[in-house]
């Protein structure tokens, strides 16, 4: 395991390790940086040389009062020096360009890697993760935090290297030119370094807090916006405003705290620089008078210090980048490192479904240790059978069907499809064999056509239409102005619950799964739609082993076996008539909840309408 993928390694080290993946870019950038620094440092030296040699103002030793000539240098020397200065500037321009571009490229590539990793990880993480994750938090990690990490290498590490090199070389040159003045100039560097590290340590926790607060604020905002109907129905705008203002207020105080830190820190660093300029000047003049230094050297010193100004100022900025990258990196790695409890085995084979027999053997399951959801569930679904799951909320019906495609893994026992343990087969093959129509139908912001062929992007238009017809949604689709190209999802055509459900049925039909799961808890439909869904469903279930979380009496009555669940256990099992006779829990549910539907049907019979058992008109 490399440092980059080791969750226990320090965050910043891991970031550097990830940058190492693109080391050719990093080295090219550093090479350009060195070139730029060298030429940057050469400029003051050349300027000093131009003044001393070119202009020939090397007269300060002459304290005796000799007449000083100002043409000691030569025009040709001056011209050569000036030419060199120009060459250095052009070279430096080139290197700076290359360096800026390469560093940016490295940063962008790192952000690119991170986004891909986050995306991939999020879609591979099991339901257990997504049940807990808040989308606002996830998004702020994928956006702001990736941004923080992006800046770390190109604007943090590389610039730090630049600053260090520049400081080391310039002060080295200064000290070698005049040890006394050079050392005096250098004395300010530790002050800057100490101040910088103090601020880093103080800023880090504040930044973390601010990021968290921003997430909280976004959550309040999002809830308020998505829940507008409720907010308006109860006239709770003021209450919501208080919640929001509380977050925004805290955010203000915390942000202002960081602003105060920086208000001291950056001017302090800048003041230090100016102070060093003054002190160096003072001692420089004394040295010139003593004959230990030339005017050109002093000019060069002042130029070096001027060069240092931007880097010294940027130390504060670099500290921020480091602090931000540390917290942002930690948050991003939290996603990237998240381990899914559902993982494919290394030697997983593709699932081969021949008949479609599903078996649960002593299956137990819990979302967390304290609250077991299923105990010791045993069931056999024969190929092609329809199994209805019935029971009160929280009895474990959804858990049973969620275990089959391994959205969660059981804590005990095993689940077999045609004799193969679902944990021994590849996730892809397992999930393509199982079609699911969930209670909460999620449609993507796309055309109806693309939504229907979501599971099979290569499906032809004819196949899409056939599926839509079988799902009894075709007529509705063609009645729309844009037909199959009608956009759905946010800002698109709003579909009713029943229409969404039928789109989902069409989407699943197109997959042609061997095993089917239908969460029928929804009755979110008017009478006619219910009828259409019944028909669509019948088409969908034909020839497939089907698990239905049943609410409708008819579905229950038509099922090959009914599993009655209570508190995570199957308490009764059998067909409708058998269970009615048994007069157990099923009978109780039937009397209390389902009978209503039958009575209504019976009433209709009395009024002379025919009941057709099979379906269809």
């Amino acid at each position, binding site marked *: 395991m490399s440092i980059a993928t080791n969750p226990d390694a320090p965050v910043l080290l891991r970031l550097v390790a990830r940058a190492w993946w693109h080391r050719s870019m990093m080295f090219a950038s550093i090479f350009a940086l060195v070139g730029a620094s060298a030429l940057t440092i050469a400029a003051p030296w050349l*300027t000093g040389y131009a*003044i001393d040699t070119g202009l*020939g103002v090397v007269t*300060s030793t002459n304290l005796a*009062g000799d007449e000083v000539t100002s043409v000691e240098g030569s025009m040709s020397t001056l011209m050569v020096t000036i030419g060199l*200065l*120009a060459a*250095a500037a052009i070279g*430096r321009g080139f290197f*700076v360009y290359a360096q800026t571009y390469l560093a*940016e490229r490295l940063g962008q*590539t790192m952000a690119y890697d991170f*986004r891909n990793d986050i995306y991939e990880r999020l879609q591979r*993480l099991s339901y257990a993760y997504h049940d807990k994750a808040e989308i606002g938090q996830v998004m702020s990690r994928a956006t702001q935090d990736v*941004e923080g990490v992006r800046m770390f290498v190109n604007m943090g590490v590389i610039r730090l290297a630049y600053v260090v090199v520049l400081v080391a070389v310039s002060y080295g040159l200064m000290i070698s030119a005049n040890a006394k003045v050079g050392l005096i100039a250098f004395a300010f560097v530790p002050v800057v370094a100490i101040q910088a590290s103090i601020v880093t340590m103080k800023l880090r926790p504040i930044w973390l807090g601010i990021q968290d607060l921003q997430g909280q604020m976004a959550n309040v905002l999002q809830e308020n916006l998505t829940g507008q*109907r*409720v907010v*308006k129905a*109860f006239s*709770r705008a003021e209450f919501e405003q208080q919640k929001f203002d509380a977050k925004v207020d805290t*955010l203000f105080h915390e942000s202002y705290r960081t*602003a105060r830190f920086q208000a001291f820190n*950056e*001017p*302090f660093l*800048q*003041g230090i620089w100016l102070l060093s*300029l003054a002190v160096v*000047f*003072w001692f420089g003049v004394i040295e*010139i008078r003593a004959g230990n230094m030339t*005017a050109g050297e002093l000019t060069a010193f002042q130029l070096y210090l*001027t060069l240092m100004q931007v880097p010294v100022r940027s130390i504060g900025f670099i500290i921020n980048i480091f602090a931000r990258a540390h917290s942002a990196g930690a948050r991003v790695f939290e996603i990237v490192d998240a381990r899914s409890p559902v993982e494919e085995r290394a030697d997983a084979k593709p699932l081969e479904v021949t008949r479609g027999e599903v078996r649960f053997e002593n299956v137990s399951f819990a979302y967390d240790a304290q609250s077991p959801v299923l105990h010791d569930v045993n069931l056999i679904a024969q190929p092609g059978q329809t199994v209805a799951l019935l029971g*009160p*909320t*929280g009895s474990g019906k959804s858990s049973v069907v969620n275990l089959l495609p391994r959205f969660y893994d059981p804590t005990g026992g095993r689940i077999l499809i045609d004799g193969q343990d679902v944990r021994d087969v590849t996730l892809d093959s397992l999930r393509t064999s199982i079609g699911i129509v969930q*209670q*909460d139908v999620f449609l*993507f912001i*796309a055309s109806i056509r693309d939504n229907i062929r*979501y599971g099979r992007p290569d499906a*032809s238009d004819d196949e899409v239409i056939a599926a839509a017809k079988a799902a009894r949604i075709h007529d509705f689709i063609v009645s729309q102005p844009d037909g199959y190209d009608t956009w759905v999802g*946010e800002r698109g055509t709003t579909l*009713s*619950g*029943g*229409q969404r459900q039928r789109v989902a049925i069409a989407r699943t039909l197109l997959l042609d799964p061997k095993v089917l799961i239908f969460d029928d*808890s929804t009755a*979110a*439909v*008017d009478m006619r739609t219910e009828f259409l869904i019944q028909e669509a469903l019948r088409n969908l279930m034909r020839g497939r082993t089907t698990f239905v979380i049943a609410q409708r009496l008819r579905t229950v009555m038509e099922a090959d076996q009914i599993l009655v669940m209570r508190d995570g256990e199957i308490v009764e099992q059998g067909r409708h008539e058998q269970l009615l006779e048994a007069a157990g829990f099923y009978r109780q549910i039937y009397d209390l*909840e389902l009978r*209503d539907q039958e009575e209504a049907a019976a*009433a*209709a*019979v009395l009024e002379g*309408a*025919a*009941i057709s058992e099979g379906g*269809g008109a």
Partner: protein
Amino acid sequence: MAYWGGGGAGGWSGGPGGGPQRGRGTQVDMTTRRGIDGWDYDDLGKVYDTALIRRLIPFIRPHKWRAIGALISTVILSATSYAPPFIMALAVKRIIGSVQEGTPESLDQAVADTQFYGLLLVALAGVMFLSAMFQRLMTGYIGHHMLRDLRSMMFAHLNRLSLSFYDREEVGRIMSRVTSDVVTLQELMTSGFLNVLSDLLGLTIIIVLVYLLDPVLATVALAVIPLLFVFMVIWQRYAARAFIRVRQAIAIVNANINENVSGVRVVQSMVREETNLEHFEALNDQNRRMNLDAAKLQASVMPLVEVLSTVATMLVLFVIGLRAFDGRVTGAEAAGLALGFTLYIQRFFNPVRDIVLQYTMLQRAMAGAHRIFEVLDTEPAIVDPLGAVELADVEGRVDFEHVKFSYIEGVAVLRDFDLHVEPGESIALVGHTGAGKTSVTALVNRSYDIQGGRILVDGHDLTQLQRASLTRRMSVVLQEPYLFSGTIRENIRYGRLDASDADVTAAAVAVGADEFVEQLPNGYDTVLHERGQNLSVGQRQLISFARALVADPRILILDEATANVDTHTEKIIQRALSTMLKGRTSFVIAHRLSTIRSADRIVVMRDGEIVEVGSHDELMAAEGVYADLYRMTFTNAGSEDGVAVPAATH
């Protein structure tokens, strides 16, 4: 040094997406679409907009003194940070001159000068430190305060906008305006303006000082400026486009992540991971390429500035050299001039470069300001009129008088809807999807305004009432139970903020929610994960029933309230329903027959009109639409009016 925060401030849906990709084999395109009636994004590229800037002034006004303080400190800061080379040039000229004179007096003078100029520089360092600190404190305060005010103001405004706005706009896009766009504006108002100001001041100071030092040399040094200007004009044209593309690209990437996370359950069950990743990588790569294009442009400023500043330095040194060799200036003078000019030329290009770098920030801030004002300028469709009547209490009489209503002009939803409801009466609304049932309920609490007719509550026209006084005694339960983060208790109390714990429990008991709540480890203090995802839909709906009941409403609206819940929950609700409806005016949209049957009156709707009204028995006897609907639901036979059920041929 090239940094502009990429798309960081762009939010995740702040820009126009690409057009929808169509055609065979294309993947589902999840980019945001440009809305037909939504906000437009065309002004992304403007760098400076006086009208926008003028509108920002009111946000600064409360901080007038701080702003003036910031301005003054900026001026002082600029002056102090650009003065040292001038002072040093003077000092070198004087001190070296004195030293070269070599007389004891001149040497004493040199010592005095050294002390004077040295102390002056130290004093300057102090002033600079203080003014910089002061400036940052002021701008930091103003900026963050403004951020808070703007956000709070936008939030308040958003809550004033009517539901028709929310039907139209995507939440993600509104979000990015409140979270990200305001930050760009804050940057502009604080660091942005002042940086540009101090850069301009710096330029002016330098120009004045170099002319003071030597007018001829100053002219020579500044001769390169026109070249720089020409380059910047050309550069800017390309940069504007590049940075717009950057923002668009990141917006598309973020929208894609957002959607994939929201739909992750479908993604996994349909095994779309690989296809989606491929698609995402393409978008992600496009974003990277757009950023790199912009980076190239940004980086290209550096070499130019380098070359120009060197040309200027060369020219100045050359002219000084000419003069020195001609003997027109002494060595000391030449040294002083050379030092002063080389320092200033280098400094001169710093503000020029800064201004260039501020460019993208300006552009982004203008776009941000534009989007923010788009929110603030959206007029709320529904406001209480001046002198609106405050209802002390609600009796519960509701009259619809020939109501005409449509969401979109020309597409009538209700045509001449006329219904008079007595206090305490329960009304069941029946009809196909699209018949207008939900619209009727949405109009009772004035979620929308009508286009014709009147709606009266207790004889008062809705448009003349204080809306809050009405909703205080009116509760709604929607099909999708929507809960907020917080505890169960807090969620129930949402219906009446001053409800006691006993009231909360009583409401929960009345709707049958108490049973499951008590079984939770923390009972009523159980914290709901993201809007109650840790509860079943049925349980969430029970809580929203309790929330409705705790308000003790006089008018109760149940809009398919039991549609999404499991039969067990439904049964619980059924049992509670009679107590809930008792003595309350109620509008019920339900699919369950028993609920409909128990209503005092059933209103059958079709295409926005009432076709039948009466009790269950009356309507069954009438053998009309209701009787047909009723039969159809519980038998598989289609009725004579066909109801467009496609024949189920196998």
